[in-house]
């Protein structure tokens, strides 16, 4: 692996940060005296958990945010990066985590917007040329909304490359890619580095960083806590630096609890050739999705974002009705035509991907947010009137039972940290004693401690005989907690496989849509 990583050229640093400080309202130090230096041709990892301050730092480098203190040196000269335009003029390009693309505009128009005044037909030619040189196939005339996530990232990269950057910032570029797309991205990045471009690579995926980067700077809680050569540092040491403690492995699970070993009991959840249009014009429709989830097991659905996960969740929760009632069954009852409230009455609970604005209303108190999905149970609402005492009581119970750090039941949901709000939402759903829980990205953007607590709670529900369906883009998460796994790609769902019978590579192939190339495992063995 080391052969593919030629040492960066010696000489002055391309970019050096000295003592960068950024404060946000409420006196939180997002960046606390950060130093960082990159040489030409160096691929430099910026490693840290969500909330460690990585995104704030790169936004400062790219001129989107402005530092409160500190110095920025570019090619040895102190500079003021007042705006992204200034950053680009210096030779800094950035590929954003959440792409900054314009859905209704064409590839060419999107590229044109990032360039200063370059016009005309030559642009389409220039796009073709750059795309060809780095293996980034694109049709300049297509509109962004018709592109896959991987193609969108190519547009972002091509857009940066056309400005001949000397520093390329990549913010979590692989979180939305399939393993094979990741490989081809790395080929492109190595070629760029070989040409002398410095790359600042932001990630929290340790294996990727070890495979790709020359140096790594590790951030925790806004500070630099270490720097190392990732190739010679073990994954475990990197993780310890990043998290600050030994990341004790999730305790080994008990084998699946299948009380219905005879197999005659109806599955808790059954999807039967479910096909439906997406709620947004920019997502693929679901096609012939079939699936069974039994009590006492966790079924994981893997897949790259934008492959129909949102539609699937809405179809399961009842926010989006299925065309045929029989396409969705809960405990044998056809529910495809029922709304969320009626499905809740059958013992279904749902944790949506978006915490703010869907799973919870940020402006409302925790008591009101407890009411949001629990209003059908516990006599919280009687004769059309809300029992406020009970609602506050429920919120306090959730806070205590699930270790939510919050300023009481009156605190606004928006004032909680991501992890604590997620614990609150999952706690709220679990307290309804669901027979079937469906959760999307249950630990997305959540700190390690909260993620472990959430995983424990989910496993506990499973061990008590609950049926769980977890939709996640985090393969590590699914391999850690799921009993069976399936992959969603372009609105189609693969067959489910027991987790211990598939490898990461096989799941990766399926995420690329190659369902049939993966050898069929031995018939489901239940010992």
């Amino acid at each position: 692996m080391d052969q593919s990583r030629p040492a960066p050229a010696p000489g002055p640093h391309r970019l050096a940060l000295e003592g960068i400080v950024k404060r946000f309202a409420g006196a939180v130090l997002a960046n606390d005296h950060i130093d960082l230096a990159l040489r030409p041709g160096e691929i430099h990892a910026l490693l840290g958990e969500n909330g460690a301050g990585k995104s704030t730092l790169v936004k400062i480098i790219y001129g989107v945010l402005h530092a409160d203190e500190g110095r920025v040196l570019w090619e040895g000269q102190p500079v003021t990066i007042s705006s992204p335009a200034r950053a680009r003029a210096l030779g800094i390009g950035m590929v954003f985590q959440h792409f900054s693309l314009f859905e209704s505009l064409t590839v060419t128009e999107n590229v044109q917007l990032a360039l200063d005044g370059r016009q005309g037909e030559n642009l389409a030619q220039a796009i073709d040329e750059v795309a060809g040189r780095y293996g980034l196939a694109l049709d300049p005339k297509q509109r962004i909304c018709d592109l896959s996530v991987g193609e969108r990232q190519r547009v972002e990269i091509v857009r940066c490359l056309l400005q001949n950057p000397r520093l390329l910032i990549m913010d979590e570029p692989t979180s939305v890619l399939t393993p094979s797309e990741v490989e081809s991205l790395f080929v492109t990045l190595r070629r760029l580095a070989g040409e002398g471009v410095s790359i600042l690579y932001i990630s929290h995926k340790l294996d990727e960083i070890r495979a790709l980067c020359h140096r790594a700077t590790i951030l925790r809680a806004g500070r630099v806590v270490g720097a190392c050569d990732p190739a010679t540092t073990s994954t475990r040491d990197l993780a310890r630096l990043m998290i600050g403690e030994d990341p004790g492995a999730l305790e080994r699970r008990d084998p699946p609890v299948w009380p219905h070993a005879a197999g005659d009991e109806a599955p808790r959840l059954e999807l039967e050739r479910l096909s439906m249009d997406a709620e947004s014009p920019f997502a693929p429709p679901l096609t012939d999705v079939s699936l069974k989830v039994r009590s006492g097991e966790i079924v994981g659905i893997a897949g790259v974002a934008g492959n129909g996960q949102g539609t699937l969740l809405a179809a399961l929760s009842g926010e989006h009705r299925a065309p045929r009632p029989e396409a969705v069954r809960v405990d044998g009852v056809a529910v495809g035509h029922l709304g969320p409230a009626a499905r809740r009455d059958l013992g279904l609970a749902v944790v949506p991907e978006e915490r703010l604005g869907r799973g919870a209303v940020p402006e409302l108190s925790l008591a009101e947010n407890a009411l949001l999905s629990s209003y059908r149970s516990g006599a919280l609402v009687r004769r059309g009137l809300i029992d406020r005492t009970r609602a506050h009581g429920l919120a306090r119970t959730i806070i205590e039972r699930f270790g939510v750090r919050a300023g009481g039941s009156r605190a606004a949901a928006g004032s909680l940290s991501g992890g604590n709000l997620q614990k609150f939402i999952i706690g709220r759903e679990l307290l309804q004693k669901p027979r079937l829980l469906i959760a999307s990205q249950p630990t997305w953007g959540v700190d390690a401690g909260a993620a472990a607590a959430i995983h424990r709670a989910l496993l506990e529900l499973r061990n008590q005989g609950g049926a769980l369906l977890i939709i996640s883009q985090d393969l590590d998460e699914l391999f850690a907690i799921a009993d069976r796994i399936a992959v969603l790609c372009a609105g189609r769902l693969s067959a489910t496989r027991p987790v211990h019978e598939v490898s990461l590579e096989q799941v990766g192939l399926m995420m690329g849509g190659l369902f049939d190339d993966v050898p069929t495992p031995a018939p489901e063995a239940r010992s």
Partner: protein
Amino acid sequence: MKMFLHLEARGEPSRLWIWAAPLMAVFLTLAVGSALFAALGKDPLQALNGFFIMPVSTLYGATELLVKAAPLALIAVGLAVGFRGGVWNIGAEGQLTLGAITGGGLALALGAVDSPLVLPAVLLAGVLGGMAWAAIPALLRTRFHANEILTSLMLTYVAQLLLGWLVHGPWRDPHGFNFPETAPFSPHAILPVLLEGTRLHLGIPLAGVVILAVWALLARGFIGFQIKVMGLAPRAGAYAGFRQNRLVWFSLLLSGGLAGLAGFSEAAGPIGQLQPALSPGYGFTAIIVAFLGRLHPVGIVLAALFMALTYLGGETVQLFMGLPLAVTGVFQGLILFFLLACDVLILYRVRVGRRPAPGVS
């Protein structure tokens, strides 16, 4: 562009400014109003006195304030329910007109029928008329996704033309010297005056009761909670299983019904018949009242009193100082602007000057 004004988000909404912002808006309006009066060559203090103090310095004036505030508060409370849920009914003036037409029509049809049921019947007809008119935008939004702002407003013009046709044509009082107005309602269909020598009528305490009921509904009722969720985060409402269409219908019917009640109360209270110009724009002013009152019933009552004062003040300064009546409209617009601007202080601190220079200590 370097920003001259720099907004800095507060972590939490400021409790102080939630209440101070409306007061500051009133103060700023008075300041600009004084400047306006001075520009017109009038002594600002005298004019402000004429505008805000003189009208309510007599018992009659004070009761007139209530007469004007009651329909404003009644309509605004209904509108506020919808505004909380993102349902923008701005056609209350039309629903008010329809309420007057249906209530007035029934009153005219019943003629001299003498029964204690006449008054409740005509009031109910007024409510139903307003509801029916608001049902059109509700249907068009829920069935065809047509924007209710535009449809409810277009229907206001239609309602006013309809009233115009009725009082010029089929419903014109044959003994009315060809004036475009209907015959006076019979005494049984009139809201009785409560205080001799004033126009304080039964419609005012009635409005108070209705406003209290809506308050209870908003504060304790589950439907109020659903509407609030729908307004703040529609996707959370859908996730919870609240039926958006039902909430749209509910808010439009409620606000339409209250506007209809206010409309017929105007016709059956201070006026006593149908005329082409029933309301001095109560349906539009109520939009300002709803915002000024922070979409909260208590605030709305206070805001309605203040706005009613601008109507009386406009009449007073016209009478005594020869100032144009249109001053009222200017004041009403100004106060809403200032309120919207002052509300920024609830969520943000305003810093004047350039942003801190980036990247350099």
